[in-house]
């Protein structure tokens, strides 16, 4: 497969996964803020998701110029925010268009459909409480369809594995950001820990990671920060945990690069093996000892490394003539 095509499929996976994550997090923040209406929780709920998507600083700037600008609008529909759902989707669709001959008609049409839907959404969210849920839901089920169609209508060759690599790397990154945002942005004062607000925020974190039901099915007893964080890092059976995503990434990478010269694959493969080992040894005590924020910070840096090695040694490398 062309290196450029492999790289584009990887990025298509990343961007689509990110679109879905933004929609999911926005939905949770929306319900939390409506529920707590006007209390401190209101702004906090949005700060967390803005931070997780790298939009918090940008939002604060933009908000100064336009006090009416809501976090939801900035996060979902703004063209001025490079990390917004709309902008990410525009990039994903442009990639899909470039890759069109690699995708099944079904996959392409579904990507095109959600793009057209989002494009047609002109409403700002200043006064848009009903539409918000429907909008996010539509985007999420759109991305879910694409992932499903990818598995069911696209040839199971290396292209599909590169796509999946993108999905899992992005998913690992987003999950770690969701947890980190709670710790770092919503850092409660010591007396709040274990209180009602703290607990409801952790529930929101679980829901943001689609993990609320999974948590309840695997954990009895109290919802505490360390328990939630541990599940999202280490949950072997939970498809959005860091550990699960890294292992899935590793599997797809090995399949995708099966025929790539070993001199090229060794760099990413080594990094993935180490990451896999390190995550396998994490437990609640270790996480608390190290500090969740510090752990997530380190993890994200290592994902950036994997991504860099992937480009340097696989996608962008100039192979020598045999």
């Amino acid at each position, binding site marked *: *497969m*062309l*290196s*450029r*095509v*492999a790289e584009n499929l990887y990025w298509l996976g990343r961007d689509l996964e990110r679109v879905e994550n933004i929609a999911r997090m926005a939905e949770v923040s929306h319900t939390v803020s409506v529920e707590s209406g006007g209390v401190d929780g209101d702004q906090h709920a949005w700060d967390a998701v803005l931070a997780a998507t790298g939009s918090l600083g940008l939002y604060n700037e933009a908000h100064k110029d336009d006090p009416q600008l809501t976090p939801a609008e900035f996060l979902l529909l703004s063209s001025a925010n490079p990390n917004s759902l709309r902008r990410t989707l*525009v990039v994903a669709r*442009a990639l899909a*268009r*470039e890759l*069109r*001959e*690699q995708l099944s*008609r079904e996959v*392409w*049409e579904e990507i*095109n*459909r959600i793009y*057209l839907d989002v*494009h047609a959404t002109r409403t700002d969210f200043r006064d848009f409480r009903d539409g918000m849920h429907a909008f996010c839901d539509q985007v999420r089920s759109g991305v879910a369809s694409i992932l499903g169609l990818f598995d069911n209508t696209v040839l199971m060759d*290396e292209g599909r594995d590169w796509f999946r690599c993108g999905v899992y790397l992005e998913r690992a990154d987003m999950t770690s950001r969701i947890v980190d945002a709670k710790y770092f942005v919503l850092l409660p004062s010591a007396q709040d820990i274990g209180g009602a607000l703290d607990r409801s925020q952790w529930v929101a974190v679980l829901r943001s990671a689609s993990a609320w039901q999974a948590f309840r099915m695997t954990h009895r007893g109290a919802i505490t920060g360390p328990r939630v964080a541990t599940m999202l890092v280490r949950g072997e059976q939970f498809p959005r945990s860091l550990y699960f995503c890294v292992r899935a990434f590793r599997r797809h990478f090995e399949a*995708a*690069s099966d*025929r*790539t*010269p070993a001199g090229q694959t060794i760099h990413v493969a080594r990094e993935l093996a180490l990451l896999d080992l390190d995550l396998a040894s994490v437990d609640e005590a270790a996480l608390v000892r190290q500090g969740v924020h510090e752990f997530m910070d380190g993890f994200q840096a290592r994902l950036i490394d994997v991504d860099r090695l992937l480009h340097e040694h*696989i*996608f962008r490398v*100039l*192979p*020598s*003539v*045999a």
Partner: protein
Amino acid sequence: MSDPFSGYEQLAGPDEMFAPDGSPHPAYAAFAERLGAWSIEHIDGRQRRSEMDLLASGITFTVYQDEAEVDRIFPFSIIPRIVAHDEWRTIETGLQQRVKALNAFLHDVYHDQRCVTDGVIPGQVLFGAAAFNLRMVGFEPPQGVYTHIAGSDLIRDQHGEFRILEDNVRTPSGVSYVLENRRTMLEAVPELFPEGAVSPVTDYPEHLLEMLIEVRPEGVAAEEARIVILTPGSFNSAYFEHTFLAQQMGVDLVEGRDLIVHDQTVYLRATTGLERVDVIYKRVDDDFLDPLAFRPDSVLGVAGLADAYRAGKVTLANAMGVGVADDKVVYRFVPDFIRYYLGEEPILRNIDTLAAVLPEDLEEMCANLDQLVVKPAGESGGYGLVVGPQASAAELRATEERIRDNPRNWIAQPLQEFSSIPTLLDGALRARRADLRPFALTGADTWVLPGGLTRVALVEGSYVVNSSQGGGSKDTWVLRPPRASEE
């Protein structure tokens, strides 16, 4: 129920669907009966359905409106062009003849240039052609084929005769719309198809692939030939077509940066290493093909490609330097090529054309500008066209000045009242002028796709069908021979 054809007004020149007395032509009889059973509202509903289908398929281009991106489909009309079988035979054999003559001409141009010494075409026309490519001189392309893919534009003139308006042998585009228009029609208006009477077009990609394999470099086994399509990239207006053909043929779609040339061999950069490329269906202009050979500022090309081509290590389709054959001034001489190289009379005639580079033509042209359509030789897509009868006196004066300034760059033709086809616009059927671009593939033989791109001028009174000038497209139905005469 309202008759959808009531109030339909024919234009000057023939109507493809109706005779002057309002009865449908035989080729349209079955279609007209079915369509006539529908109300205009129902036809409108089907038209909209086809547009929604095209939008969902993402066969669109992006325009900017009030700072927002809007996706538009290329206008499509559900009333097809229908071509009777015997008429199609004329077009088919006429194109085969024309392609053969053009290839003979190109071979001559890049070898002995007998056409100049024998006075078939003035040397200044030939060597003044921008596309004349010195690097092709003395080079023998595989199978002697220059114009692997050709798409000539035809119109039906006021006397009902199909004539060649221009040839496109560089990178003719539009064939993906032929296939997609057919698919859209089959989905949106299946009831309108007379069962089994319309020639299918879906096997075009297979014919294209077969041809590309046929012209592979010597010494490469057919089953091992690696074919790619070279595209300028996703910002090119024909990018959809490039992806479409790549997908339909199952070949790689590459950009210049995906290829490298080493030791006069072309490779593509794959995740598994470098892989040799044998045939390149190029959709990149010659000027941008190889920064070492042509434009040094081009980032679209592949350094060393022209060299690999001349060494016979890779086949380019179409060949480099073929633009000489579809130069608008050279066009005037194509009927003479047919007589000179093949010893035959042209089956499909040209439009009478004046070339300002010939002194007697220049004077005739300037004396009759108000009755002529003037075209710059170096443009395509309908740019720079002056329609004499519709131009102001000042425009005509300015045009004359430009012509006298650079005669090599101008040709003129009498305004053609070419045929029109009913087209649904604003909820009513209106006559709109249309041309026809069939596609011819040449390997060992020339095969003509039984169908083509029918482009239609949507603007009232317009003679310009190009999509860049507000044109739309239609499906083209080539009728099969009646069963009785099939044996």
